[in-house]
């Protein structure tokens, strides 16, 4: 089975490229804190500020004189960890609540109204509101972003469950003695999970961009937390003098987002038996 998947991956060069790129970024992120001392963040040297990329500083330096290359790498670790956490947490909450809404009619109405409330507030505003209550650490921002992201998954899952429940095979299985619990866990949920999960990789990219937006409007974690978004936001002021400040972290966000999208599309196609033929 693994061989078959590997074979399919090779066929789709784009997805393979995506996986490779993401793999490199992930590896970088994983290794970064082990290789680069955290002190780099506080290594403020105003004398060396805003120097372009050179042999000494591969990505140049920022307005605090810190080596951008190390910052970007450290940020990889933080960003990936954060985005992954947010998406996974949002998925878990969204799927559970969505399934509940789909199966238990009495919970459907209240749950949908709650998601309505969350969805009616623009995500940035919501994140800002929560962040201002909890504080602007990266952990609190993560929590804020979970609040922002779960309603969509909830809605999706509920919609999928409602549709799936009406499908003829559910009727047929009922006449074959399959009880409600078994129906839900062995049949309906496995068939509904994938379209919902398929969104997740793309959402990782969205989370990164939202983090950048938060930093941009001043709700970021601050200059001493290496985060791609806040690097881009900080670099925006120097975009003509020192374009590398925006380019490299921006490229990082872009590449991560793109590669995950490609892998996500491919994974969804591979794991859906209907699309397999």
């Amino acid at each position, binding site marked *: 089975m693994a061989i078959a998947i590997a074979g399919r991956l090779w066929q789709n060069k784009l997805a393979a490229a995506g996986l490779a790129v993401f793999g490199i970024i992930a590896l970088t992120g994983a290794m970064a804190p082990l290789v680069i001392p955290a002190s780099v963040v506080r290594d403020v040297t105003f004398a060396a500020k805003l120097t372009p990329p050179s042999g000494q500083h591969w990505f140049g330096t920022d307005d605090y004189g810190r080596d951008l290359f190390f910052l970007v790498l450290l940020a990889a670790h933080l960003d990936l960890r954060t985005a992954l956490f947010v998406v996974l947490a949002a998925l878990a909450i969204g799927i559970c609540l969505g399934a509940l809404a789909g199966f238990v009619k009495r919970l459907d109405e209240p749950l949908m109204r709650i998601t309505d409330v969350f969805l009616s507030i623009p995500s940035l505003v919501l994140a800002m509101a929560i962040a201002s209550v909890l504080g602007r650490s990266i952990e609190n921002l993560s929590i804020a972003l979970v609040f922002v992201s779960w309603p969509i998954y909830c809605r999706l899952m509920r919609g999928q469950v409602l549709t799936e429940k009406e*499908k*003829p*095979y559910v*009727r*047929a*299985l*009922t*006449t*074959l*003695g*399959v*009880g409600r619990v*078994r129906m839900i866990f062995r*049949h309906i949920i*496995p*068939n509904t999970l994938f379209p919902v999960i398929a969104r997740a990789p793309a959402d990782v990219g969205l989370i990164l961009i939202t983090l950048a937006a938060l930093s941009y409007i001043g709700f970021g974690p601050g200059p001493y937390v290496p985060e791609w978004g806040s690097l881009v936001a900080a670099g925006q002021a120097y975009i003509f003098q020192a374009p590398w400040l925006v380019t490299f972290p921006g490229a990082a966000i872009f590449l991560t987002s793109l590669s995950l999208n490609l892998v996500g599309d491919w994974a969804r196609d591979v794991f859906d*038996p*209907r699309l*397999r*033929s």
Partner: protein
Amino acid sequence: MTEPLVLEVERVVKHFPVRRHLLERRPGRVRAVDGVDFQVRAGRTFGLVGESGCGKTTVAMLLVKLLAPTAGRITFEGRDLAGITSRAVKEFRRRVQIVFQDPYGSLDPRQTMRSALVEPLFTLGVARDRARALDRAVESVEMVGLDAEILRRLPHELSGGQRQRVVIARALSVAPRLLILDEPTSSVDVSVQAQILSLLADLKRREGLTYLLISHNLVVVRYMSDVVAVMYLGKIVEMAESAALFGAPLHPYSTALISAIPVPDPEAPTISALARGDVSSPVHMPPGCRYHPRCPFAERVCREIEPPLVELQPGHQAACHFPGVARRSAPVPEPSR
């Protein structure tokens, strides 16, 4: 008719409330099944015929307890379906099985055929361990003329005919007493249809099954059924032994249905389109006889009084004020404005 009674349907009604839309003052009801009576006896195939909206699929769902009747009673092997509670439901499901119209839709797209066949054996308590369940699965699959190798496949890897056979095998694996077939050949090609029909006839002989066949295809119904009931807009309009109904139909709708089938013989006379217009809406039922807007022989009484279903000849019931009129007279030409 001394065969034991397997199924008895008495004055069964099923209405669905229609979600009201803003322009309607009173919510309507879809009178899907509006008072149906019939009996199915062991070993005698019962055919239920009708076009869209006649209620035959709803009847099927009522018979397998996927729906509960709004009124009336359904009795299987002497027990009222309404009285069968949760423990006995499994036993009931083991004895009444149904094959739905869409074989692709009836299978979980993620389940292998082996899993699809083994699962009901466990859920209905037919097998107790995996080995026996697997044996039974193989047995069922071979009984319908498929190779055991098919157990490894997923639904989308099978052809339409194979899927239909698997679904039949699944239903038969629990050894039911009554098998309900809802349009078993409507979604397959002619050659596959022929295979499935032969298979069904064969199985009936070998396993002593009782079938309730639902179809809009009169030729298939004629081939398989002993007793036939014709449904229109929720009611049975004619019911008789197959030979009597097809030989000498009494209700104009039966005649229209029979003569509407294009005969695969270029020398045969061209079909006459006896029924006019389209099937009325089951929400806004016409007054009097439900069929009158389409009937070329409708008279004033037909528009005012609904004819009851009565036994006009021994074993032959029809609900019409002028039974046999379609065979006797030429239809009144359709008014062209």
